[in-house]
């Protein structure tokens, strides 16, 4: 019954070692999002895709990249993780919010950088 799936749930990487987080959806939504969430803070939008159109937030570091090979899958690549990138990474999907649709979130991937 899972709608937004994230793998892995926990990821440990070393400082500077590239890491990829994955997200898949069964909702067939046009929009997929990646958020970063640090402890006791609101989620911070990194970027989103509308279909294949990529939209980067102005303050998202260049260290973060994303790929969306098809409607169902989206990947977050962190090219050279620093200690400050340790966080929960949330994937979400939606249709068009302005017509009453909803963002649905996955369970998140907790990233630890050693």
């Amino acid at each position, binding site marked *: 019954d899972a709608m937004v799936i994230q793998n892995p749930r926990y990821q440990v990487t070393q400082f500077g070692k590239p890491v990829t987080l994955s997200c898949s959806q069964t909702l067939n939504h046009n929009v997929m999002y990646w958020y970063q969430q640090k402890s006791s803070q609101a989620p911070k939008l990194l970027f989103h895709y509308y279909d294949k159109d990529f939209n980067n937030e102005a303050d998202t570091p260049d260290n973060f990249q994303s790929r969306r090979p098809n409607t169902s899958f989206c990947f977050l690549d962190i090219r050279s993780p620093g200690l400050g990138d340790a966080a929960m990474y949330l994937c979400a999907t939606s249709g068009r*919010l*302005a017509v009453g649709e909803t963002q649905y979130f996955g369970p998140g991937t907790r990233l630890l950088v050693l």
Partner: protein
Amino acid sequence: AQSVTQPDIHITVSEGASLELRCNYSYGATPYLFWYVQSPGQGLQLLLKYFSGDTLVQGIKGFEAEFKRSQSSFNLRKPSVHWSDAAEYFCAGGMDSNYQLIWGAGTKLIIKP
């Protein structure tokens, strides 16, 4: 500037007592508004949303929220909390964007036995 404010960082409530979590917004027009709940180490789960129509919105887990345009508020309520309601609650809103939500800082709900 558009904003969503949750004035309370923490709220402590006794089990069985009623609950109200505050959310205020600042938009030029009627926003669409959401309440999400997040248990520790989990993703965000939608509790309820307001888009248009009836200003009293019913959600899951016995929660409701009322949109009050005159007070620019969308407060979340529950008549009787359970220990399992202990979590972080986020209010979020948008106006004319199909993709962007503006998030409140969250309110952590603590339940006293």
